[in-house]
């Protein structure tokens, strides 16, 4: 939708958001933002407060304190205006069983203020984008598989071309083919809409998201680009080395290359021993280690840097002690 208004700094802004259920604090002092056009993964263990946060941002639940804003509009003070900029797909994606997909999307388009002369075109477009047009358009929602129901939820979210899309576990229950399809669909939204997406499939999040926000026990434990978080949370670069040399020789060669190197023997098979070498992440020896080990005359069969994925970042972040938690 064309909009001449200047872009807000944050498409989604959560400022010191807190939600308490009686004595239980689900979300505490949570602050993060999503820039326009950015895709952000919202991660946390089960019960971390992800769904509560998303529901507050979507305006379906009131926070206890703090401020939630969508496209600069307060969700609490101007809910209707905030909802006009946003679409939300909740975790269990509740849908009416007795409507056909096309009927449901048409109703939702009207409720989302899609101009009357564009409703049919928008419904057709999102059904095409979500691969619903051929096989599911005229089926009752109650007869659809889980995968197609998820697609209906995502199609609904995209209907009114909102500026912000909040998706709570959009790939849950999907088979690998469907996950790839949804991933490509979400990726295609980059630059067009701000997307906040929660998922347990960290590999998916890593492939799709520009930034991640990690919460644990309702509190922010990390946020930023995966590469930055990798540097912040995992300060070492680990190498796996397989050689016939003993621990003393390997240690000597590794320390010669990087004085702060740590060596650990992992196991031996057929006379070949597997070692883990840990270097500071910023050490220049990362690029010269292989050469240094060969130059030291070690009989080397294999050397490889261990890949640090989002899973490692997630585990490192969620293991942080409360004292380590950093306020942004």
């Amino acid at each position, binding site marked *: 939708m064309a909009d001449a208004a200047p872009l807000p700094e944050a498409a989604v802004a959560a400022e010191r958001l807190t939600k308490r259920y009686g004595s239980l604090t689900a979300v505490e002092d949570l602050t993060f933002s999503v820039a326009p056009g950015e895709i952000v993964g919202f991660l946390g263990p089960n019960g971390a407060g992800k769904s509560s946060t998303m529901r507050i941002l979507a305006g379906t639940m009131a926070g206890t304190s703090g401020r939630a804003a969508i496209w600069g509009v307060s969700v609490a003070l101007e809910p209707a205006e905030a*909802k006009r900029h946003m679409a939300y797909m*909740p975790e269990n994606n509740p849908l009416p069983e*007795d409507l056909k997909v096309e009927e449901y999307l048409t109703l939702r388009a009207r*409720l989302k203020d899609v101009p009357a002369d564009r409703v049919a075109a928008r419904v057709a477009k999102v059904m095409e984008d979500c691969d619903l047009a051929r096989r599911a358009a005229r089926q009752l929602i109650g007869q659809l598989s889980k995968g197609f129901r998820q697609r209906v939820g995502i199609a609904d979210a995209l209907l009114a071309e909102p500026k912000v899309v909040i998706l709570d576990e959009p790939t849950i229950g999907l088979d690998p083919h469907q996950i790839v399809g949804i991933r490509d669909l979400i990726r295609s939204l980059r630059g067009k809409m701000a997307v906040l997406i929660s998922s347990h499939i960290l590999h998916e999040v890593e492939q799709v998201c520009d930034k991640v926000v990690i919460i644990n026990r309702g509190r922010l434990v990390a946020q930023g680009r995966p590469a930055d978080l990798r540097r912040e949370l995992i300060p070492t670069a680990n190498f796996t080395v397989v050689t016939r040399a003993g621990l003393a020789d390997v240690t000597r060669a590794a320390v010669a290359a990087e004085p702060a190197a740590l060596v650990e023997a992992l196991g031996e098979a057929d006379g070949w021993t597997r070692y883990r070498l840990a270097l500071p992440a910023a050490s220049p020896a990362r690029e010269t280690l292989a050469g240094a080990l060969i130059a030291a005359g070690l009989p080397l069969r294999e050397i490889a840097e261990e890949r640090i994925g989002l899973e490692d970042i997630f585990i490192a972040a969620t293991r942080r002690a409360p004292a380590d938690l950093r306020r942004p």
Partner: protein
Amino acid sequence: MRHFRTLLAHELRAAALAGGTWVSAALFLALMGAVHWFAVLDGAEAPQTATPLEATFQLFWIPLLCVLPLLTMRSFAEERRQGTLAALLTTPASPAAVVWAKFTAVWLTWLAFWLAFAAFPALVAQRLGTAGDFRLGDPIVLGGGLAFIAVSGLLHVGLGILCSCLTRSSALAALLTFVGLLAFTAAGGALEKLPIESWDWLGWLREPAAHLRTFSHMEDFTRGIVDARPFVLYASGMLLCLGLAVLTVEGQE
């Protein structure tokens, strides 16, 4: 309220396609058919103070208590159970628009049931071969009775909608509506039975009790007497119920 028409059209369509609506309609017409037929037979056996149509309308409380809760119970309770109400409220549609649309759809359905009943006097007259007999199909009684149903239905349906907002269980919503309607319908009569005149401290109840006589309202309507007070009572009661329903839905957001 910009989305009221969209929501109303959706609710009416859903009501027309729901099996529960048709079951309720069949139950309603069977009940009213039986009530009316027995009223005609009573009238044929011995002279009565009321015509068969008046006697039938005096038993309006039977379908009110047995059928109306079936129409209102699912409106919010089922949506809350499925989670679709929360999904609906993620759109710019306001809770007020949702409540009013559901209320209007059930109210129109309730009226449609009674309009279908309006064919009964003609059918009875045709069956008995007495077409044109004024006693069987007095248009003032019929029109007045239907007007009473329409006006009192504002409050009755509003109460059902409110009860449906309060729970995720359709059965519990129906039970709450039944109790609420029973209490309201019987309240006027019950208050009349109290010796209010002899209790000074209850003197303030005299005036309100006089306004709560639902059966008197019905009799006035069927006699063609138009009094503004029932309109005010039922319309204000409806506004109170729907206002509380909107607050309840907003509170559930």
